């Protein structure tokens, strides 16, 4: 893994070229509408010095962590139940797939009216965005357990508990982690939308406020932070995925 490859040279050249063109064009456009890289760096510096950025970032992360954790716990639990008991699947799968294909954003105004403008409402929005991919993937993971292995375990009189611990959970794990990877991206979207609606906290509020004031350079600061957060979280889960189920990656690379 050499860093100084031709491929990376092209990437870096492309980024530098884009930044230069942006800087050149951006300085010639009305600052109400557009901005340029140096101004964004300045805005970054200013928002970090005043502590504003970290304050809002912490509020956002708090909501994200609460909602995401709830979704992981409830999603895995329900997914396992639905995967194990056919009756549970029949009872809820129509509702689950309908809610999964509905643009969840359409429910946000309603949730805000029910739960108010504070942390519980935002947590619930994030939860709703995250829970379905985890639930559905867990269910599929439990379903995809090798039948032959199940039969062997049953033949050797494995108890239900042992069966789960030694066979079902380990083989469902890669599916579950893949669900979590999908969920984290959706969770970020939910967090931003919830903050657009409820206002006065978080990165989403920063975006709305600076957009309304036409402070475009500052507006780009939370956007860049969200982009970095998205890349970071997705890469982190991919890393975990590769450690939990390395054979999947091998298969993909082959």
């Amino acid at each position, binding site marked *: 893994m050499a860093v100084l490859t031709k491929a990376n040279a092209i990437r870096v050249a492309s980024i530098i070229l884009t930044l230069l063109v942006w800087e050149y064009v951006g300085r010639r456009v009305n600052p109400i509408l557009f901005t340029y890289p140096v101004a964004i760096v300045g805005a970054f510096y200013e928002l970090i010095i005043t502590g504003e950025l970290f304050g809002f970032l912490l509020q956002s992360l708090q909501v994200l962590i609460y909602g995401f954790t709830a979704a992981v716990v409830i999603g895995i639990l329900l997914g396992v139940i639905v995967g194990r008991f056919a009756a549970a699947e029949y009872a809820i799968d129509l509702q689950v797939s309908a809610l999964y294909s509905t643009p969840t954003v359409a429910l946000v105004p309603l949730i805000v009216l029910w739960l108010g403008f504070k942390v519980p409402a935002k947590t619930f929005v994030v939860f709703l965005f995250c829970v379905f991919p985890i639930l559905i993937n867990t269910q599929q993971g439990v379903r995809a357990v090798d039948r032959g292995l199940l039969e062997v375990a049953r033949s050797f009189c494995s108890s239900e508990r042992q069966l789960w611990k030694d066979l079902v959970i380990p083989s469902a794990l890669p599916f579950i982690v893949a669900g979590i990877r999908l969920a984290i991206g959706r969770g970020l979207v939910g967090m931003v939308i919830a903050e657009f609606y409820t206002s006065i906290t978080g990165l989403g509020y920063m975006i709305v406020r600076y957009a309304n004031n036409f402070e475009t350079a500052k507006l780009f600061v939370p956007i860049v932070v969200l982009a970095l957060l998205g*890349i970071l979280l997705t890469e982190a889960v991919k890393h975990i995925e590769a450690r939990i189920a390395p054979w999947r990656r091998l298969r993909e690379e082959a």
Partner: protein
Amino acid sequence: MVMKEATAGKMAGAAAADQAAATRGDWGWLTARLISLGIVLGAWEIYGRLFLSPAVFTYPTAIARAFFQLTVSGELAAAAAQSFIVLFIGWLSGILLGIPVGLLMARFRLVERSLDTYVNALYATPTVALVPLIINWFGFTTLARIVIVFLFAVFPVLINTFQGVRNVEPNLIEVARSFCSSESRLWGDVVLPSALPYIVAGLRLAIGRALVGLVVAELFTAIAGFGGIIERSTSAIRYDRMMVPVAILMIVGVGLTEGLRALERWLAPWTARRA
């Protein structure tokens, strides 16, 4: 040979039995689902009528009545026209840009390396974060909503097209090259057919995201389409009206996704069988 035939016969028998079980299961499955749905709707109706003030929430028959009223007044048709035009144009422009750029990135290393950083970064960014910026640029116009839907839709199409072309069996390309296939025939006969299922899967992912983009754009501008009805009804505490576009969006979401899934199965039955 004989044993092989016997095994094949047994397997065919097992497959037939599986099929029968699956058909029986399908009916049981459908009934169970409908009963469950009926119970949920019935419980909602009773609870909503008896215990919920209309300021808190509504119940199914009230939503049906609101649906009727909005249809008669023509509000719903007007909103649907606004929403579907934006959805369609945005999605289509996402496809028209996503597929060619995906092909170029897959074919030319220089294009791939110049663009992949941006594509990956923009795909990982929650696109909603850009909505206020786009509205500042384009105003509260139809164009702004189309651009937002486009931004939501383009990346899954682009990335899937790229992956599809990259996953073409290298042996097939080698064989085609060995038989002196021209570049255009190579694409027409080998690359595009094997990338097609990926591309259609990208279109399916894109339509889901396009719907999200549409609703976000409309809620944010609050003057047009289904999102406009949601926003105005919520401010007026008319939940029965608010739930009408929500239900429609739910049905449209399921319908479009399933439609494209069917197209996928039709174009590439082998991927469906594998999954």
